[in-house]
């Protein structure tokens, strides 16, 4: 012992000391990166509250919340301004309830179908469909809603304008569907196989097993899925503002088509109009605080429920099976097939219109089962149970068909009309005549610059935080706080990020509307995703490798650098690409921070404003009249969807190679 000590301290004292120093500084650096999420959450809260304070002081919190008139524009148009946020709140609730009425049955039906009914082949087609629905940028949903859905509602129901409550609810239902489906599917899959086998062995049919054992066991997970769907719907901005009509009226059940203005759409629409420093602007900050509080409550309650489930599953000694993360990996092969099938389905259903087809399907099913009932004269209970099962599966299957058809309709429209607009000139020239002519070259480059900057900012921070969380701490108070920060940041609506970017980077730091402000705002938004995916990648490296390296005398940081990080790089890259895909489609965060419409030139520095595909699509659709504008909007939408889909495919490809090369 003594000999070794003296030998060591005598031979390499310096190296050891400097090694210690690096070790310490690495640890502190990583800790700082890990606190970014928490700091950001507090900064958002602080700046929003500070800017909202004047209105809350003037009106009082209670009056602000319960006042039934929202007329802040009076301040500049010379009539008495009123700052009651109740109509906005009520509209958000109303639109969300409408969306859930549609989305919950479809989403849970699809989840049951995927996890319990579908064969492997069908499952490998349906899962990518759901993932694709999640991948479509919200501004593209809004565009689709405005040019297709709203017109369809207008014609079908013979109303003055299709813009309003119902249109927004339908659109939100489609957008919340993937969230509900994937979380519910996870919950259903987590029900131990033994429960199902136990039930089947007692002579229950598959449907009886689902109804009496599987669903009750997965109930809390399904509840969390619905709550998360609600969170998604309440926080959604772009798609809603494009189809809701934007009038701050109190929703009335008698008028499902009435125009409304939600919390999010009020911020997005009015922030550009409200003069700087006006009460109107302060009022909008108040609305943002209200929105943030609601979303936080929703997210915290779902986290709580999901946490409870986890506890239950780990506490009961029964199983600790590690589940492979349900990314789209295995389905990648079938993606192409799925998309084609879905488009065909969409075209078919669109041509005959959804409702008619469903009615026919249900009719056929009814007649068929009735006929069976008569012909066989069922006396046996098994046959009755089997028939019930067939009917139930029929309904569930039609939920899946509707889901797939929705995606098909959207993709079909955008592909067919967009392909007509795209030419070499369209891709390589700047826009002219407010985007009616010319192309979208600066927008393509702008989007690439924005997401490139965002990931350059988010990747080092996110990786640092993830390394700190997995390698340097035990689970405890600190990790809990950091994770909570990431969780809250993840649930923060994109419009709130936009507002924070405007307040902090554009105004407070004085960067102005600039590419840099947009990049960092987007970077903060994707940070939680980077942290989570990096953590998953690090955790998949077996603990034995770390011990092996440490036992050979490597320091912690050396071990991380040389043993832990290299095999987790593909996982980290997958997360990064998914984040880029998400950032590329976002509009709300760059709405007030970075984006300009029609600009001939590319930005010269990071402090110049920049064009971006989603923003271009948004303005073309909502502010530029004319058939040419619509054609080019289709082209822009297609380019955006292709860009995002391309990024997701790249992520899948990396994942697949990664899984192949992984030997443990």
């Amino acid at each position, binding site marked *: 012992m003594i000999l070794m000590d003296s030998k060591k301290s005598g031979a390499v004292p310096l190296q050891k000391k400097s090694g210690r120093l690096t070790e310490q500084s690495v640890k502190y650096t990583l800790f700082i990166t890990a606190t970014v999420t928490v700091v950001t959450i507090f900064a958002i809260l602080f700046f929003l509250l500070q800017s909202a304070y004047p209105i809350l002081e003037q009106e009082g919190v209670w009056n602000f919340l319960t006042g039934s008139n929202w007329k802040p524009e009076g301040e500049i148009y010379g009539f008495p301004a009123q700052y009651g946020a109740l109509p906005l709140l009520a509209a958000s609730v109303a639109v969300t309830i409408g969306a859930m009425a549609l989305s919950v049955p479809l989403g849970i039906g699809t989840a049951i179908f995927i996890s319990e009914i579908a*064969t*492997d082949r069908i499952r490998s087609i349906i899962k990518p469909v759901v993932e694709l629905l999640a991948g479509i940028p919200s501004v593209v949903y809004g565009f689709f809603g405005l040019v297709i859905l709203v017109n369809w509602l207008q014609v079908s129901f013979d109303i003055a304008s299709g813009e309003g409550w119902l249109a927004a609810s339908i659109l939100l239902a489609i957008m919340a569907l993937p969230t509900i489906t994937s979380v519910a599917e996870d919950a259903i899959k987590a029900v*131990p196989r*033994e*429960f199902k*086998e*136990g*039930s*089947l*062995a*007692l*002579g*229950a*049919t598959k449907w*009886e097993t689902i109804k*009496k*054992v599987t669903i*009750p*066991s997965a109930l809390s997970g399904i509840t969390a899925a619905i709550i998360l769907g609600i969170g998604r719907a309440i926080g959604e901005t772009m798609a809603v503002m494009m189809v809701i009509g934007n009038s701050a009226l109190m929703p009335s059940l008698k008028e499902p088509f009435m125009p409304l203005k939600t919390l999010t759409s009020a911020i997005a629409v009015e922030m550009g109009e409200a003069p700087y420093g006006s009460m109107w602007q302060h009022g909008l900050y108040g609305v943002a605080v209200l929105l943030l509080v609601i979303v936080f409550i929703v997210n915290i309650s779902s986290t709580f429920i999901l946490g409870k489930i986890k506890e239950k599953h780990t506490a*009961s000694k*029964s199983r600790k099976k590690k589940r492979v993360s349900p990314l789209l990996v295995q389905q990648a092969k079938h993606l192409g097939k799925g998309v084609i099938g879905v488009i065909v389905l969409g075209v078919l259903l669109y041509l005959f219109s959804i409702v008619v087809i469903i009615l026919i399907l249900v009719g056929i099913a009814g007649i068929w089962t009735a006929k069976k009932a008569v012909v066989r004269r069922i006396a046996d*209970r*098994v046959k009755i*149970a*089997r028939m019930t099962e067939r009917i139930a599966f029929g309904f569930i299957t039609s939920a899946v068909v509707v889901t797939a058809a929705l995606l098909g309709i959207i993709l079909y429209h955008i592909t067919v009309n967009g392909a007509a607009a795209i030419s070499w000139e369209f891709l390589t020239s700047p826009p002219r005549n407010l985007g009616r002519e010319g192309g979208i070259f600066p927008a393509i480059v702008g989007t690439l610059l924005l997401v490139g900057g965002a990931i350059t900012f988010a990747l080092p921070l996110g990786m640092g935080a993830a390394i700190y969380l997995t390698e340097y701490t035990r689970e405890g108070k600190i990790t809990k706080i950091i994770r909570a920060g990431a969780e809250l940041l993840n649930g923060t609506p994109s419009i709130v990020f936009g507002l924070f970017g405007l307040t902090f980077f554009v105004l407070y730091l004085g960067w102005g509307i600039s590419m840099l402000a947009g990049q960092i705002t987007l970077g903060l938004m994707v940070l939680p995703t980077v942290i989570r995916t990096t953590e998953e990648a690090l955790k998949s490296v077996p603990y034995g490798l770390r011990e092996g390296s440490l036992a050979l005398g490597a320091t912690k940081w050396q071990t991380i650098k040389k043993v832990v990080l290299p095999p987790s790089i593909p996982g980290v890259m997958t997360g990064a690409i998914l984040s880029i895909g998400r950032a590329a489609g976002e509009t709300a965060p760059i709405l007030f921070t970075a984006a300009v419409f029609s600009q001939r030139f590319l930005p010269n520095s990071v402090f110049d404003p920049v064009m971006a595909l989603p923003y271009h699509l948004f303005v073309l659709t909502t502010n530029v009249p004319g058939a040419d504008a619509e054609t080019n909007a289709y082209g822009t939408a297609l380019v955006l969807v292709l860009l995002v889909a391309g990024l997701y495919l790249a992520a899948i490809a990396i994942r697949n190679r990664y899984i192949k090369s992984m030997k443990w």
Partner: protein
Amino acid sequence: MKDILIRTENLNLWYGDKQALIDITMEVPGNMITALIGPSGCGKSTLLRCFNRMNDIIDDCRIEGSVFFGERNIYEQGIDPVEIRKNVGMVFQKPNPFPKSVYDNVAYGPRVQGIEAKKNLDRIVEQSLHDAALWDEVSDRLQESAMGLSGGQQQRLCIARALAIQPEVILMDEPCSSLDPIATAKIEDLMGELKKNYTVIIVTHNMQQAARVSDYTGFMYLGKLIEFGETKQIFESPQEQLTENYITGRFG
């Protein structure tokens, strides 16, 4: 030999490309306990699951050959596995009570069969719990969650649950492998009682258990049924070299 209740004929089973059962032909006598023994992966659990068509729920599973219950081949076209499973109870390796109350666990099968009347259910639940030697331990907490019972109690609850559908046959897939010796002893005693009214087929890893409780024993190896006969004969004068090697502990 006594009356034959179940008979398999040239039963072959594949999981994908891998053949798990090879040409199994055997006869299981009624009102007896038949044990299936053999090393891990020899196909004994797979064979057991053929008797109530539980293998049907595995996607890439393919079966050839027949399994007769009396005169009826349960793999014949047009036979609903749900119907089969009503006559065959199954107890799994790990106790798998549903996350419901003790009462609801036992009543699950009868309810699925369409029995709704409270009085009937009460009677079935009490009878089944008695038969599974669990009644005295749980009679005062029928409405409490079954997850709160001990492992041995949970397994007896699973037996009660299987008895409640009034099957002819009870399949047990290593029912004691996750239990302690005392709980195991209780289940073994129970099996002795059960064979008065039921035909029991048990898969077990534990040769002493097979020797203690069973009347007939089948030894399986690599998907084949190597030897089948009265337990006494199998353990005292096995005909096959493989069987002898296994029961004398030379492999496995």
